[in-house]
């Protein structure tokens, strides 16, 4: 390893952003006047210099190989002067400043087959997601597989603008929510439902008992001596299956084929447009894991999208729609069962209870 330690370079940071810009972006930085979406996946931005750029937005798998990235690079070399970008939602964007490149590039994308145009406007764009069983050590579900199954079913909405407003879907494979599903129109969340199974014979060797105890938000963990081992005990009645103990202590895994599955959430948004940003709210507490194509999850999401599409007013986000009609109507219209699990009993629970005589039957 010594040869790699000599002349070590550190703390240089990423390449500077403008090195990665095509000339048309450099020339028109800060000068853009307006944009139009010409068709799903195709945007044109017009500059005060008179210049235009066309952006072709394509759905892509977040998890990809260098082989696939090389295909993207080749397309960018051939049509876009060797530049392209990714969006925040894992789409690929090919940007051209020369209109004559537009149709040939569209043809090349169609020929590729794995870069569908879409993800713009009042439709469903790519799903922001986490790693799932592909790479994470705390997941309750897979991520890429669920995303693939859901997007296959909603594919028509990716390449069209027929919803009242944009619908942002995200997925996180456990309650850590690396996918930040707490503020999306529709969220897919991996959940555990069994308390950690404790490996008493190894816990003291693998974990610091005080930090493990301190990790529990509900103080459900206490020190315990089990079969002469220094270990911990979990009060199952207080466990909310957050998995924070496992993050601190590998001897307390939660994963379980029967216990794990998906919760669906709806109505969050991060944009400030019209209404203020909103958290997602619980729609379905639990759907079992159904690999490889998670049909119950997929069909429930499809149902929510279709009811929303038919019932919401123009420009109304899912959360704005649910708020306007009332959550009691959301459950009625979607046919989703309401249960004890929907009633909050954590920190700010009382703020969510109805303190009024105003409601709908």
């Amino acid at each position, binding site marked *: 390893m010594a040869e*790699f330690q000599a002349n070590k*370079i*550190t703390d*240089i*940071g*990423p390449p500077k*952003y403008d090195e*990665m810009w095509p000339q048309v972006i450099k020339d028109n930085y*800060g000068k*853009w006047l*307006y*944009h*139009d979406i010409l068709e799903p996946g195709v945007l044109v931005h017009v500059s005060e210099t008179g210049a235009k750029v066309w952006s072709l937005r394509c*759905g*892509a798998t*977040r*998890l*990809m*190989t*260098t*082989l696939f990235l*090389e295909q993207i*690079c080749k397309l960018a070399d051939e049509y876009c002067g*060797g*530049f*392209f*970008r990714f*969006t*925040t939602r*894992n789409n690929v964007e090919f940007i051209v400043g020369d209109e004559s490149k537009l149709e040939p590039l569209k043809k090349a994308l169609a020929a590729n087959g794995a870069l*569908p145009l879409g993800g713009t406007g*009042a439709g469903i764009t790519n799903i*922001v997601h986490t790693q799932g*069983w*592909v*790479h994470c*050590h*705390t997941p309750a579900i*897979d991520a890429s597989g669920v995303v*693939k199954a859901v997007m*296959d079913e909603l594919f028509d909405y990716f390449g069209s603008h*027929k919803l009242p407003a944009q619908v942002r879907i995200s997925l*996180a494979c456990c*309650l*850590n*929510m*690396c996918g*930040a599903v707490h*503020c999306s129109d529709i969220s897919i969340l991996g959940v555990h439902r069994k308390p950690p199974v404790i490996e008493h014979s190894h816990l003291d060797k693998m974990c610091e008992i005080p930090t493990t105890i301190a990790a529990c*938000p509900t103080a459900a963990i206490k020190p315990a001596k089990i079969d002469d081992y220094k270990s911990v005990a979990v009060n199952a009645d207080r466990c909310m299956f*957050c998995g924070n103990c496992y993050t601190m202590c*590998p001897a307390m*895994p939660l994963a379980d084929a029967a216990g794990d599955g998906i919760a669906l959430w709806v109505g969050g948004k*991060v*944009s400030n*447009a019209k*209404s203020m940003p909103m958290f997602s709210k619980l729609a379905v507490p639990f759907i079992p894991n159904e*690999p*490889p194509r998670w049909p119950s999850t997929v069909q429930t999401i499809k149902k929510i999208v279709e009811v929303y599409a038919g019932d919401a007013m123009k*420009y109304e986000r899912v959360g704005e729609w649910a708020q306007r009609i009332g959550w009691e109507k959301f459950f009625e219209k979607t046919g989703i069962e309401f249960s004890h699990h929907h009633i909050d009993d954590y920190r700010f629970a009382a703020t969510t209870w109805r303190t009024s005589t105003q409601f709908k039957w």
Partner: protein
Amino acid sequence: MAKMHDTPLLDELTKGPWPSFVTDIKKAAEAGNEACADLLGQLELSYKDKEGHWKHGGIVGVLGYGGGVIGRYSDVPDLFPGVEHFHTLRVNQPASKFYKTERLREVLDIWNQRGSGMLNMHGSTGDMVLLGAFTEQLEPIFAELTQKGWDLGGSGSALRTPACCVGKARCEFACIDTQDICYSLTQEYQDEMHRPAWPYKFKFKIDGCPNCCVASLARSDCAIIGTWRDDIRIDQEAVAAYVGGEIVAHGGANGPDAKLDIKADVIDLCPTGCMFYEDGKLSINNAECTRCMHCINVMPRALRPGLDTGASILVGAKAPILEGAQMGSLIIPFIKMEEPYDEFKEFVEKMWDWWDENGKNRERIGELIQRVGLSAFITAVDLKPIPQMVKEPRSNPYIFYKEDEVEGGFERDISDYRKKHAR
């Protein structure tokens, strides 16, 4: 030649119109990539077992850095030796994820040579995530990356890789130089990013306008959101063209034939009711406007943000673990964001000092603020309380007065009291 595993469950995910990660990884496996073959094998086992097959964590890294590499080991390495070690390297992405192919290929070449050839483009925080390296490859990968001008991002209890929206590079709504702010913060705070020294993680995200395309106010401890404090610019000719149906509504986001109904789509949907359309002229009472962006979104050719631009700063957003999800709270309603951003950085450093001093282990700044109160935080960063910081004033009477706020202080003599009031 890589040993291919039977993957009947995963093969179901090669069907359908959406791009398939299985198809892609399988191609790489068939081309001889053992890590790709074994990753599919192990994932197939997870699909069968309905449980993941990665061990908990693993302490690995590169010398001199306390983060940027996430350890990962298979718990079935005998079956899938190609992914026995499957460590992740977070590579700091260029701001707003533009790539020059020639530069990106530098990373791809290193990764083909020394890693699994699989990546996340991109991780949730923003990095390029190189997914799957053996321990002995970590130092060589790091050395080769830095030689080519690439560096690792953040992990652990450190500054995480800042991220931003496309900004002025290709968006007419951007009120601030998102890329430059992102780059400046990243460069200024390399030590905070690479050597974890805090109670927990800290994220910056920079959105050019209140549409918040990078979800800064939900996903970052400190959200920098472009805004303005003068008037929305109006082009009355373009307004007339929208009204006349000559320009498609919403920049085509609701289809090419969407006509703008100025009353229903704009005036009536304005959350503050500050817009008026009379005698063919649109007017805005800007003093009442909360800059939500709706009108600008639906008639982008007629309306533009003002010219006196800067940022609103919101602090404390995070996902639920532990105390529940939080969105950022407005701390600085407006701050000019001009290079080198000294005023903002001064605020940042005060904020970090206070959090570092007072935060418990694994306590995000938003949770600390929740625990000790917003007032304690704004005092620590030398700000004055203003009504913009809250949605509404308190509705409970429990004010924690400090002794010096009350005339005569707290010390009293009970006998003085009893002289006037019988027991």
